[in-house]
């Protein structure tokens, strides 16, 4: 029941996003053929506008778009005559999601590890070193880190390819560059959460049972400390998605980010809509999964469909 209600709410959210994007997009001055206006005669421009229904009033355009969308047809790309938006998205998804998921895994695994270690060695040298790394990670933007990584790992030491896409080796540097800042934030979150948990009474109970420190941390510490970190994965996903735009550009990766940005410059309306719908769906689904995982981690949290 809860899940059905949630899914309906998710669809509603996505519909609101679609509508708002549609309205805002159309209110930007100019249209896809603005750059051709000096070259082509007016009649040709009018014909082209008519082809894409751009001469119709806005509500009609909206209804036409929603009709296609209901059949999961994102329409043609105006700038690229050979590829539809569906093609662009299905080509881009594997690339962008490989990058995003790898970065998420790196950020989570190393961020949690760094945070836990820092917490266990609270106020000792290891803690300070870990937190220094974290501060660096937060303050160095990915567009600075990425060229640095390329300079050393690719250009000077020849360990990894400079850019482009193809083998798994190509994915390493961009994933790392993308992961570092969320990794640092996760480490800081996990550290403070873990310090708090390790001072709780039930940790003393576990200690009094004669468990080893390793078992105490693993079975009693982490599960309780991880909840605030899970909350952060939502905003983190946003960082990763927007981060991919920059990283894909720097590493010349044929992902979705390029189309999203170019689409806006070219006023390629179907591309803007298609990529926006794709990214917002990803985000809404991630938030949904986070809510579900709360329940799995903390039995005190009940998922209920209505407020009381």
């Amino acid at each position, binding site marked *: 029941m809860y899940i059905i209600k949630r899914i309906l709410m998710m669809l509603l959210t996505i519909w609101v996003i679609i509508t708002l994007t549609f309205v805002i997009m159309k209110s930007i001055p100019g249209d896809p053929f603005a750059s051709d206006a000096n070259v082509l005669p007016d009649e040709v421009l009018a014909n082209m506008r008519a082809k894409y229904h751009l001469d119709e009033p806005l509500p009609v355009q909206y209804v036409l778009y929603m009709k296609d969308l209901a059949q999961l047809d994102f329409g043609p790309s105006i700038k690229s005559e050979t590829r539809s938006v569906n093609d662009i998205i299905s080509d881009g998804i594997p690339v962008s999601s490989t990058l995003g998921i790898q970065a998420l895994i790196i950020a989570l695994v190393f961020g949690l590890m760094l945070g836990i270690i820092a917490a266990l060695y609270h106020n000792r040298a290891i803690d300070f070193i870990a937190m220094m790394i974290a501060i660096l990670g937060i303050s160095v933007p990915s567009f600075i880190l990425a060229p640095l990584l390329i300079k050393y790992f690719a250009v000077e030491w020849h360990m990894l390819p400079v850019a482009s896409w193809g083998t798994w080796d190509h994915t390493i540097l961009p994933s790392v560059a993308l992961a570092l800042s969320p990794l640092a934030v996760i480490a800081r979150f996990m550290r403070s959460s873990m310090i708090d948990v390790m001072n709780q009474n039930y940790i003393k109970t*576990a200690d009094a049972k*004669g468990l080893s420190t390793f*078992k105490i941390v693993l079975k009693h510490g982490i599960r309780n400390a991880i909840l605030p970190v899970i909350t952060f994965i939502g905003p983190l996903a946003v960082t990763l998605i927007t981060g991919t735009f920059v990283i894909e550009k720097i590493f010349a990766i044929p992902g979705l980010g390029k189309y999203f940005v170019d689409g806006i410059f070219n006023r390629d309306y179907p591309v803007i809509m298609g990529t926006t719908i794709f990214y917002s769906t990803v985000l809404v689904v991630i938030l949904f999964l986070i809510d579900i995982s709360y329940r799995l981690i903390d039995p005190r949290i009940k998922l209920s469909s209505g407020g009381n």
Partner: protein
Amino acid sequence: MSHLLDVKNLEVNFKTYGGEVKAVRNVSFHVDKGEIVAIVGESGSGKSVTVQSIMGLIPTPPGKIKNGQVLFDNKDLLKLSKREMQKVKGSKISMVFQDPMTSLNPTMKVGKQIEEGLKVHQHLSKADAKKRAIEMIKLVGIPNPEERYNQYPHEFSGGMRQRVMIAIALACNPELLIADEPTTALDVTIQAQVLDLMKDLRDKMNTAIILITHDLGVVAETAERVIVMYAGMTVETGTVEEVFANPKHPYTWGLMASRPNPQADGKERLVPIEGSPPDLFSPPKGCPFAPRCPYAMEICLGEMPPEFEVVSGHTAKCWLNDPRAKMAQEEIAAGRVQK
């Protein structure tokens, strides 16, 4: 005969920004097999620190065990390595804490929390550990043990959680159970149930119990011997009958006098002990209770009283018990004291 637990000259300090707090000062006591010993005293008197240092639960730093021995089965626990101590904790000595609401892991099934010790210490298989855990849940008087096994702490009431804590503590049949104010956070009817349960389990399993409390009623009802602590020191020890019938330390008198009298009509005022405990950053040279003691003599302020043995097994650290203080004793006996 050697005792089950013999604490000798224990001294524990805590480093703080203000300096070193001498939380436990030269404390010695013993516990025999199957015996219930109560430690009473007001907040900050060092009761919890004393028993937590027995269990090695004092965080170091800031805590530091300066001196002393904790002999358990004739082995000094303070000299054991961390790993050796882990073998003792939970299997031979275990502990029940004050606040059952926060002492259980909220994200772990209750049954699993009982099992953990069994798996570590007795190397039981999954099935055997589960069987034993359900047995323990039943033993501490929780109905529907099979169903309760799979529940989480938030599905238990406070009293039930304290029963779970006792089940955890007793799962491995320890020789000594330390209960640090096990009933303070519970309401009165549940308090009696939990105390009865502990006594009952002592009779069944012959586990010695150290019961920390500040409730003299609990002491009288449950314990066989009592240790009165004040300002990090033991001031009076003896059997419950002896100490209640014939207390020999003015602090014990004060504690007894400050209890509400059930026979009174309710209009009677409670008698507090005037003043407050000494600053343990720099404890006084003489008797720590002297500044609050209505019977303090000159010597009390200048010199720490030794332990006077009133009768065998009943000791009090108070100069009034010195044969030379005869005059003061007579004066007190003549009527200025309500014991």
